């Protein structure tokens, strides 16, 4: 937390057109726990997350992201942020208490790239299986990839520059890395954090309101390899086999959920601090920035968006 009152990426709601297959995939392949369901939604949490849910699947006729939400420290911080967001000119509404299971009131607004973002502070606390007193390092009975948490999302939109200004100046995020055109005039990519993680949310230039991927955190390089094994065993479409990112220095495998939403099992990545400089990548080196070994992008990575 960078003194802005925003604790972390808290939840993300995905649209899926095949709810049954998607629930099975997120439960058994990703290895999240189902914590609730209502008429059109199923709620999940990772084993190492304390709150009621971090991922919501919404039954839809398409794929993509409904919204991403960040958890705020308290109501005072939420009110201050609501005021600043309205001043910036974002269209803002309130989501009333219990609109979704286990959630309190939230504020919902549209950012310049067309995505919806929410801020909230109240959500039911479920805790984790190992408890919080003298805990074992992990619980028995984990399934699938079993990530620790929802880690980040990469979103696609046109106005990366204004969106970055909104996240840094209004919400108080820090920009950890950016991708600039070779002449330095255009911002093509932006990696933003409200914690010490290399990114909590990121943007890349492209068509508005699209999702590039949702990242789940696993411990280390071996867990990325093992995630890829689990994916292949389950015949999941793996787009990028295990490798390293130049940007964030994280280790990664990319794959798709049953509705075509891209997922990532992401490990490591550096820690950043408020006084660290923003790292700059130039567009001609974007291949190495994204896939450090291959040093070039693959077509689907740019074009397969939901």
């Amino acid at each position, binding site marked *: 937390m960078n003194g802005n009152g925003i604790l972390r990426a808290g939840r993300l709601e995905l649209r899926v057109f095949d709810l049954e297959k998607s629930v099975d995939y997120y439960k058994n392949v990703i290895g999240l726990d189902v914590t609730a369901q209502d008429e059109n939604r199923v709620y999940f949490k990772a084993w190492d997350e304390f709150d009621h849910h971090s991922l919501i699947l919404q039954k839809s006729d*398409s794929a993509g992201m409904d919204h991403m939400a960040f958890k705020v420290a308290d109501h005072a911080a939420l009110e201050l942020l609501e005021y600043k967001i309205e001043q910036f000119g974002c269209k803002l509404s309130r989501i009333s208490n219990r609109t979704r299971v286990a959630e309190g009131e939230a504020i919902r607004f549209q950012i310049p790239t067309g995505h919806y973002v929410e801020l909230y502070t109240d959500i039911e606390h479920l805790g984790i299986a190992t408890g919080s007193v003298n805990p074992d390092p992990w619980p028995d009975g984990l399934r699938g990839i079993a990530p620790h948490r929802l880690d980040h999302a990469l979103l696609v939109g046109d106005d990366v520059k204004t969106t970055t200004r909104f996240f840094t100046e209004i919400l108080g995020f820090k920009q950890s890395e950016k991708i600039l055109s070779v002449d330095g005039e255009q911002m093509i990519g932006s990696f933003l954090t409200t914690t010490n993680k290399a990114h909590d949310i990121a943007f890349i230039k492209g068509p508005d309101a699209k999702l590039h991927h949702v990242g789940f955190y696993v411990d280390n390089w071996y867990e990325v390899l093992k995630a890829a094994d689990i994916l292949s065993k389950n015949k999941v479409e793996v787009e990028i086999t295990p490798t390293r990112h130049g940007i964030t220095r994280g280790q990664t495998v990319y794959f*798709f959920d049953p509705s*075509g939403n891209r997922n990532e099992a992401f490990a490591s990545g550096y820690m950043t601090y408020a006084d660290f400089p923003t790292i700059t990548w130039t567009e001609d080196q974007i291949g190495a920035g994204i896939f450090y070994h291959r040093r070039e992008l693959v077509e689907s990575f740019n074009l397969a968006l939901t």
Partner: protein
Amino acid sequence: MFRISINDKSFSCSEDNNLLKAARSQMVKVPYGCASGGCGMCKVKVLHGDYRMDMYSKQALTNQERENQQILLCKTYPLSHLEINLMKERVK
């Protein structure tokens, strides 16, 4: 087993296999992304033949495109021999 012609190439596909899987297993290069009906990268046009489609995203393939005989290779199962045209900009 049905014969699937796609531009100047062809491959075979049974009625319980999708066109993308069959093409990939026979080393016929076709465009694709998520292979799950979400992104629309494997959109092509059917010129002749019958087929059925599994669930897919209505953003990836709109109802209008569907009426225009466009399909997603990853979600289409043949019911006869098929003649398919890759979208112009996607020809490799």
